């Protein structure tokens, strides 16, 4: 009951988003209270009472100008404040040597690592199902694809969301500041297995990640242990395969 608010933020740019969210929250909250109080006050003060005639007025140009200009200014300021965070998150790609490829399908996330040679599309690529491992405090680049319908890569604690569109490869990035295990739900309706299409992102310390990578991503490594997904609807629904 107590944690009513945004999920904990663990990404670098999440702070910018949360700051804007709170700014808008306060602006809209105060506006709402002012409007609501005014409205209730008018309703009470100007309720119909015998012997009083309503004020005959058609409006006021200064007031019209005021309540056009003031909201416009606030909204322009909000627009300007939104630009830096947006361009940082969606329009720039920080330098990084850590790239994973995520290919969504009904109803799983297929996470591919390039393997020891550092290249995708070679024999030593490793693909995990619904599971991603990344080091903390490192820019991770995700090349997002879909092999059937539109899915959406959503990590609430990272404040990250991007649709995966079939026929496109969309590059996104994140940098996590705290180790842990984070859920990766699909946020775009993708069929009857949409609900329950969910992966996990494991954020390790540098050392733990290296250990995991050595055990799982090197040539001789055995196939990575799969998550138990007994509750995952995706397991039983395979008829939704694309025909193409």
């Amino acid at each position, binding site marked *: 009951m107590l944690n009513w608010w945004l999920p904990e933020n663990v990404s670098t740019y999440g702070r910018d988003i949360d700051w804007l969210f709170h700014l808008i929250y306060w602006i809209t909250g105060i506006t709402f209270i002012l409007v609501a109080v005014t409205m209730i006050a008018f*309703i009470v003060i100007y309720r119909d009472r015998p012997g009083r005639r309503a004020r005959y007025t058609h409006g006021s140009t200064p007031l019209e100008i005021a309540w056009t200009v003031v909201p416009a200014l606030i*909204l322009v300021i909000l627009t300007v404040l939104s630009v830096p965070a947006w361009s940082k998150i969606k329009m720039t790609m920080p330098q990084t040597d850590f790239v994973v490829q995520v290919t969504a399908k009904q109803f799983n996330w297929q996470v591919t690592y390039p393997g020891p040679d550092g290249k995708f599309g070679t024999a030593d690529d490793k693909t995990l199902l619904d599971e991603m491992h990344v080091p903390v405090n490192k820019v991770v680049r995700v090349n997002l694809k879909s092999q059937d319908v539109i899915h959406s890569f959503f990590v609430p604690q990272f404040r990250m969301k991007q*649709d995966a*569109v079939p026929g496109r490869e969309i590059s996104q990035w994140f940098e996590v500041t705290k180790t842990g295990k984070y859920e990766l739900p699909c946020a775009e309706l993708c069929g009857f297995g949409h609900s329950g299409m969910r992966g996990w992102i494991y954020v390790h310390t540098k050392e733990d990640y290296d250990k995991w990578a050595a055990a799982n991503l090197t040539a001789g490594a055995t196939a990575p242990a799969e998550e138990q997904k007994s509750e995952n609807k995706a397991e039983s629904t395979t008829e939704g395969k694309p025909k193409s």
Partner: protein
Amino acid sequence: MTPSTTTTVHGHAAAAHAEHHELGFVRTYIFSTDHKMISRQFLFLGLFMMILGGLLALIVRWQLAWPETAVPGMKLFLRETGGILEPSTYNMAFTMHATIMIFFVIMPILAGSFGNFCIPLMIGARDMAFPLLNMLSFWVTATAGLIMLSGFFVEGGHAAAGWTSYAPLSAVPQYTGVNWGQNLWCISLFVMGIGSMMGSINYITTIINMRAPGMKLFRMPLVIWSLFITAILLLLALPVLTSGVAMLLFDRTLGTSWFRPSGGGEPLLWQHLFWYFGHPEVYILILPAMGIASEILPVFSRKPIFGYHAMAFSMIGIAFLSWVVYGHHMFVSGMNPALGMAFTVTTMIIAVPSAIKTFNWLGTLWGGRIQFTVPMLNALAFVGMFVIGGLSGIFMASTPVDIFIQDTYFIVAHIHYVVFGGSIFGAFAGIYYWFPKMFGRMMNNALGYLHFWGTFIFFNLTFFPMHIIGVGGQMRRIYNPMQYEFLQHQQHWNVFITISALGLGLAQIPFVINFFWSLFGGRKAPLNPWNSNTLEWTAPSPPPHLNWGPTLPTVYRGPYEYSAPESKEDYLPQTEPPGRVAAARH
């Protein structure tokens, strides 16, 4: 235009014509060309569909609160599962809830029914410009409704790709397992698009050409302005949807590849087409309600609308801007992020006309003599709820914030504050206000208050907490929130929301009783029960075929001259000649 000569000649001829022919049952009640009958037909269509759409919503809510338990009463329809909703039926339920509510409840009631009723009566015309086209418009829409309903009975179930039907999920039958359901969805909306085009051409022509003598554009009631602008948006937006669903149907049945990447198509093209229609559509749904509120607030504040011109021009501004904001539905869709930034600017700007309208409604209340009738309470609720829906929209306009809240329950809360808190409260306000003129009888007040307070309280208890679970990250369109660890701690809200939604459903029962009881047993309505100024209140209740006797009303002033100093009464009808007012005063 010379309205005086043409309309009176036409009027005499038409009135004379009416006396000679008594129309039969079929021509009066079924294939009627009378705008008032067509208005009632649209109203009944919308109210019937509202029951269906509402029940679908309750089914969805049941599943979200108590996942995978039998929905009461659904055993009958879901025999194999014993009344438990499966993911596929759940997807169908929310898809059809939204489709029905938007296309077959709000549009028929606000644009169809109020458009038909108000336009000729409030501008002083005997009927629509093209009465036959008007009749066709209703029957085409009703056919579309039947096609939509038939989808529930086909193999594979009804459409289940969301009301937005994003391709390629909607474009390839194997992806959803739905075959003819989605095809019928496309066909139905195609037919509906044709019906709405017929209606919108009619509205525009009627308003431009058939205003009574003296009814200048800036003497028109604001509800007519709103319906005029709505009709223009309908005329320009619906064909885009109509084309889009035709392309989708071709992808599904004829093997084209508009939206399928496997054949070289582009999934985002569907989203561009859909939202290019879809965002003006949002204003199609809300503008008539804004007009209705602008009509009712002055009447029951007994004072002129504050800033008449600002009100009209802000609606015109919304109409223009509504074409260039649609991209805010697609910030994280893969659309070029630079374009997203441009859409942020326009989206922020379109909030300004809405702010202007809100402040002018408040200005209308200021210094008024507010009478808390049932229509007034609904109109006041409209203003309050629209403020919440408008303010929550600012979160989405800010692109970085939208990254997080896109596709969460925050969006669900926002759209319901706009289309239920806005459009539906507007529709209720309009029904309570015009019912006496439409059916010649008054509605029951006690039931009206009961309905209003029940709806208002349960509406807020249902939809406000959706903001909270949305901020908590709950995605929309998921079947079972308990499948996600980060959502489990807020499941009690889902239970709370569902119980409130059931209350909201029950709160509609007094309305249904009131509506049907008043149709036959209500007190006979006087000519002008609310002491209003506008023209419809000078016609008998209910107005006969062709609305007025041999002469059409002449308009001498604007529609909101309440408590004017030159009149002894606190209202001054548009038809009252200035000379007579002066004589009565002295």
